[in-house]
């Protein structure tokens, strides 16, 4: 038994990647998670109509940045996500229109506004008329949370499936054999892409059917568009899996890439609320494809956005697929003539 332990240490000492995964990755991940848990309170922007100065001060004290704008500008700010709510006063009392794309933000903003209105200086009626631009009470937590989680799992499983399969192709020598046929690397990558595209399409259909069927989540936009997004996200996972398995030396290394490449996609893409994180960590999300997938899923499922509204997200996802796919083809060309 001692000999076995010694042998394992000898192997570990000569495998810096495994050592890094054993010691550095957990520290890094726990530190990142601590940033979410120990987050500072966030000041949210709230657009407001004409409000008395004392109410503006109460809103400020409640942790809200109130900006006086016209009703039209407020609607535009809500749609773009710049403002979390629009508060106005009418003869029947205060009216609050919550943006609603994030249930956590909506809940905090609503609570703070109620707190500001209830301040002794206000003398305002506590009867706050609340409406939602997106979502709302009819949308349960599942309807809010499942679409982005679904996007992540489609990406993750496509990565694992394609990564391991392509690596086996390499390790069992069949990739070299394939590269010795008239098949071009582009044809090999495209073949993988098509096969896993079909798997992803079936997987997406099953997952969407489960989420919006028996699990009872609601969606506001087009189911076909959600299907298309699912396929794009899964293809993103496929190209990443193919690329990293081209670079990896063993199945184990494909797994080792998970904390480095996959976990940040779960943490910084917006599945978890990012408002409370330092700015530079929020910016990490901008380079992750999952950020655009999560945004598109939310905008279709919760905000009922159409194809043209999520064109930017789709462009980024397609670019990610094409760039990584192209990189993989280039690497295979190099491997063909090592």
């Amino acid at each position, binding site marked *: 038994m001692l000999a076995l332990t010694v042998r394992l240490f000898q192997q570990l000492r000569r495998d810096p990647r495994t050592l890094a995964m054993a010691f550095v990755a957990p520290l890094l991940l726990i530190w990142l998670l601590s940033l979410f848990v120990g987050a500072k309170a966030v000041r949210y922007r709230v657009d407001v109509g004409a409000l008395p100065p004392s109410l503006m001060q109460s809103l400020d004290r409640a942790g809200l940045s109130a900006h006086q704008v016209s009703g039209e500008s407020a609607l535009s700010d809500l749609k773009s996500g710049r403002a979390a709510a629009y508060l106005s006063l009418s003869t029947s009392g205060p009216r609050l229109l919550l943006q609603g794309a994030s249930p956590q933000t909506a809940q905090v903003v609503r609570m703070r506004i109620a707190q500001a209105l209830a301040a002794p200086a206000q003398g305002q009626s506590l009867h706050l008329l609340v409406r939602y631009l997106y979502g709302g009470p009819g949308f349960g937590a599942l309807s809010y949370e499942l679409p982005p989680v679904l996007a992540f799992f489609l990406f993750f499983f496509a990565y694992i499936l394609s990564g391991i399969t392509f690596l086996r192709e390499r390790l*069992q*020598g069949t990739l*070299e*054999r394939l*590269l*010795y*046929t008239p*098949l071009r690397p582009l044809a090999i990558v495209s073949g993988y892409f098509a096969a896993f595209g079909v798997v992803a399409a079936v997987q997406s259909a099953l997952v969407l059917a489960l989420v919006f069927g028996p699990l009872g989540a609601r969606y506001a936009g087009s189911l076909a568009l959600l299907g298309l997004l699912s396929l794009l996200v899964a293809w993103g996972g496929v190209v990443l899996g193919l690329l990293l398995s081209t670079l990896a030396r063993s199945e184990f290394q494909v797994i080792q890439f998970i904390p480095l490449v996959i976990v940040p996609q779960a943490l910084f893409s917006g599945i978890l609320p990012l408002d409370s994180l330092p700015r530079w960590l929020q910016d990490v999300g901008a380079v992750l494809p999952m950020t655009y997938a999560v945004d598109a899923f939310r905008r279709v499922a919760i905000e009922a956005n159409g194809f043209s509204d999520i064109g930017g997200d789709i462009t980024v996802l397609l670019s990610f697929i094409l760039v990584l796919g192209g990189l993989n083809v280039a690497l295979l060309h190099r491997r*063909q003539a*090592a």
Partner: protein
Amino acid sequence: MDAIVCHDLTRRFPQAHITIGPVDLIVPSGTVFGLVGPSGCGKTTLVRLMAGLLTPSRGHVEVLGLGSHDHRLRRRVGYMAQADALYPELSAVEHLRFFGAAYGLHGKGLALRVDELLSRTGLEKAGLRAVREYSGGMRRRLSLAIALLPSPSLLLLDEPTIGLDPLLRRDLWAWFTDLSRAGTTILLTTHAMDEAARCARIAFLREGSLLTADAPQEVLRRTRTQSLDDAFIALAEREAV
């Protein structure tokens, strides 16, 4: 025309401090040519350089009149690696159909070629069984059948008979002879001297260097030895001096 011409062919592996070559070698068309030597002498490296799967550090190799990386060779050269590169879940028929399609065969032509190769390799009965159930010899025969799919003018076979029982080796050698008579050039690697003796020409390799390249009888005559084992030892000792 010569099937393969190597000139000053050298491949360095700096991390392992190994250099294979320089090798000057000519493989005449229509012959069975054996690259012969012990494990680690550079046989596989030379075959991979000829197959265009490795790039020379120096010198060049010409295969069927083309550079070894020329894509046109993919339809004219059959390559069989030392390790059986097969999909365990697929059957022999599925392998041959898949690689046949990769070689551009289709329809009736592909079906006929698959049947012909299954029959030639004796895999007809097992043709529909998954390869994971195959013995080592069956896998080797399937690998060879795949290399033969494009009806190549040149076959590069890396240790084609390793681990096979004597009967199967005999059958395969009969097949090599038939193919060679039909005009196919066969370059194979082996460390077995009895197999070297069956080749029309051989090249002895040791520690990355070419000791000699000639017909087996000529090697025996020049070294004044009775067996290729003794000839190899004599040449290796002469090289060491």
